[in-house]
């Protein structure tokens, strides 16, 4: 299956990309983040992030499905 990822703020800098499509097996968003974290050296832990799937805040045990839009949301700082 294929998912769409977008990266913002510090995650975008650490990944060196603003978006990518990933081919992967079905898994939880928490497992996916842990893999990407060790692969790309992300410094933020899950505790510091919120998870958005298809533009809804959801929990880390959410299973990712084909076509999902997944975004790890760093602490916001608008205003």
């Amino acid at each position: 299956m294929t998912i769409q990822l977008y990266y913002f703020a510090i995650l975008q800098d650490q990944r060196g990309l603003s978006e990518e499509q990933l081919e992967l097996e079905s898994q939880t968003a928490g497992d996916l983040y842990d893999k990407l974290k060790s692969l790309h050296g992300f410094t933020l832990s899950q505790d510091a992030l919120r998870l958005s799937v298809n533009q809804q805040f959801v929990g880390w045990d959410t299973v990712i499905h084909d076509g999902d839009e997944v975004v790890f949301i760093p602490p916001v700082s608008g205003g």
Partner: protein
Amino acid sequence: MFSIASEALDLNRLAEEFAHPAAGAFVTFEGRVRNHNEGEQVASLDYQAYEAFAVAEGSKIIEEAIEKFGLLECRCTHRVGHLDIGDLAVWVGVAAPHRADAFTGCCYVIDEVKKRVPIWKKEILETGSSHWVACHEEGAPSGK
């Protein structure tokens, strides 16, 4: 209405749509880029937004404010991109029958936008270094 803008905000344009015959008060907030933060000299800011989500969450905040404070009109626009000192980063406009609800509603919108809307700022310091502002601390006094 909540929107994200990639070009400079025009105050005259923003203030349109607020000529409501029942409005006795029109309160606006201009959030500007200042030259210091937490003891450091700031040269400029870069803002980023997860736009579709930001518009959805910002629109929810506007609807909450209208409902809670009986506002007649409420709008907020947030800039993205590179901003210099003094530039307008965020604008809130609120029209209400009386001033108390207009002031309170305006505060509510900017406070919630800062807490909830997926927008991020990177500070570029006078020293040349830069960093993403980590977050607004939980329990920090309102108005900062």
